[in-house]
């Protein structure tokens, strides 16, 4: 079983957001980076569990600059066998990243390609579907459970107000949501071994960008909380009706 896990680098959830260069760039000064939680906690760990149960290999792939190697090494420390980094600039579009992953996947002939459900920075949730289309394989988004028997996976996925259960044969791609696996913390042995595992850096293929960031802005400032006396819920209802106009 050959498994590929796409891992992205994102600013930590608690990052203070600011911009540079006349609000056309995200200000990376002092930003703490982590592996995108959906990629790390759910996608990577479920792939490792499958490998442990069925044998095979887990490869991670990242598209970005050398600064991403820290995050890639963490994936190796958690248990991936090897890693690919497509050497690309920071902040390429989803399409650019998908094209690189699809190119590398063709050479690897993977049975399952794992993605996180979205990255916590740009919240795009596009790359999995793009790669699946480029490779002409099924794509299952928001998987919360996946079991594999022979070449058939049974997957539960989140839909509006509930869950859907489906079957799909390998090869396919999925995006991982909470529930697919439990987070693993790398141990010292894993961290030491990660240093010796292969991290193959490959050049990108050319892509013409179709989408670009014109500018960034902060959301309008929230006005201060209006405190209401806990005894006076008539007042709250009145404000929700006449001021907020939501009931």
């Amino acid at each position: 079983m050959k498994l590929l896990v796409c891992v992205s680098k994102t600013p930590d959830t608690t990052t203070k957001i600011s911009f540079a260069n006349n609000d056309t760039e995200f200000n990376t000064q002092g930003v703490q980076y982590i592996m995108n939680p959906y990629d790390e906690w759910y996608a990577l760990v479920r792939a490792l569990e499958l490998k442990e149960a069925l044998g095979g290999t887990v490869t991670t792939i990242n598209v970005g600059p050398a600064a991403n190697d820290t995050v890639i090494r963490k994936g190796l420390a958690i248990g991936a066998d090897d890693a690919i980094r497509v050497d690309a600039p920071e902040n390429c579009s989803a399409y650019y990243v998908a094209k690189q992953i699809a190119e590398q996947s063709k050479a690897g002939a993977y049975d399952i390609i794992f993605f996180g459900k979205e990255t916590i920075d740009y919240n795009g949730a596009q790359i999995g579907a793009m790669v699946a289309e480029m490779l002409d394989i099924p794509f299952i988004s928001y998987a919360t459970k996946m079991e594999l028997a022979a070449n058939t996976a049974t997957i539960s996925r989140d839909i509006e107000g509930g869950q859907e259960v489906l079957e799909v044969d390998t090869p396919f791609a999925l995006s991982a949501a909470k529930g697919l696996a439990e987070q693993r913390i790398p141990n010292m042995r894993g961290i030491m071994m990660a240093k010796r595992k292969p991290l193959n850096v490959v050049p990108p293929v050319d892509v013409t960008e179709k989408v670009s960031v014109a500018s960034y802005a902060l959301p309008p400032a929230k006005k201060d909380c209006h405190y209401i006396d806990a005894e006076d819920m008539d007042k709250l209802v009145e404000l929700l009706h006449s001021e907020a106009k939501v009931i």
Partner: protein
Amino acid sequence: MVLVYTSSPEGQLKKSAFEAVTYGYKAAQIIGTEVLALTIGNVDNAGVLGQYGASKVLNAAGADSFDSGVYAAIIADVAQKVGATIIVIADDSTGKSLLGRVAVRLDAGAVSGVKSLPDTAAGFVVKKNVFSGKAIVDYNISSDKKVISIAGNTFPPEVVGSDVAVEAAGVDVPASRVRIKEVNTVKGTVPLPEAELVVSAGRGVKDPGNWGIIEELAEHLGATTACSRPVADVGWRPHHEHVGQTGVAIRPNLYIAIGISGAIQHLAGVNQSKTIVVINKDPEAPFFKAADYGIVGDLFEVVPRLNEAIKKFKAS
């Protein structure tokens, strides 16, 4: 031409479909064209989409169960056939599986979760919330064809016309590679991502047996119930009610948070709500910083009082 794909879970068009057609109609007006709606599978009363501005509804029969590969092929083929340059999809569980596929098939630029109409003054610019609502990006799509998914509860459906005819889309339906075995959805309530009013509670409720007052409040308001992560993790409430970064992200008109402290991961899933009410006995709870209205008090006293006040309001 603007083409809007409207999803129809279990054969029913939902609010997200009407929102998408309303958006498509307005976008079509901006660029001076008309909007077509596309439905896939067996759909009840699809002609109603005309009321929201569709000049025609196309239906591709024979693909009743969802497979993103099949649906994307149909949408892209129809888009080619009618010469659509803008394709609009709702940013729901279906849209998230489709957007990237349709974009690749059409060699189009794609932006998901769009929250503004296109600004065509300099290119084709749409706004999207990023960093879980902590920033907004203006994206410029430079390709000839554009595929966008629109954020839910952002473009209220507007009736501008009347029912229109439904015609066969006349495109091939490829064989599905996905076999749907079960669909388990909660009946009788509005699913959280579509809900306009949400009542949510957390650990402060102390025991699953105490949820009655929360459900009562939701019932009086006609709201959908939700919960924080710890409460779903210990099994007090079902997993699909968990709102927050790792659960469902929502943007209702009203979010009432009861006994939830407001951790940053919870806020990331709810901070796009239009109005937030926080009820907590701890005046230092971080959630108050994100609240429009705050009540410091014991929820077991405040919520029943609020229930009475709402009953009185509804009766008047």
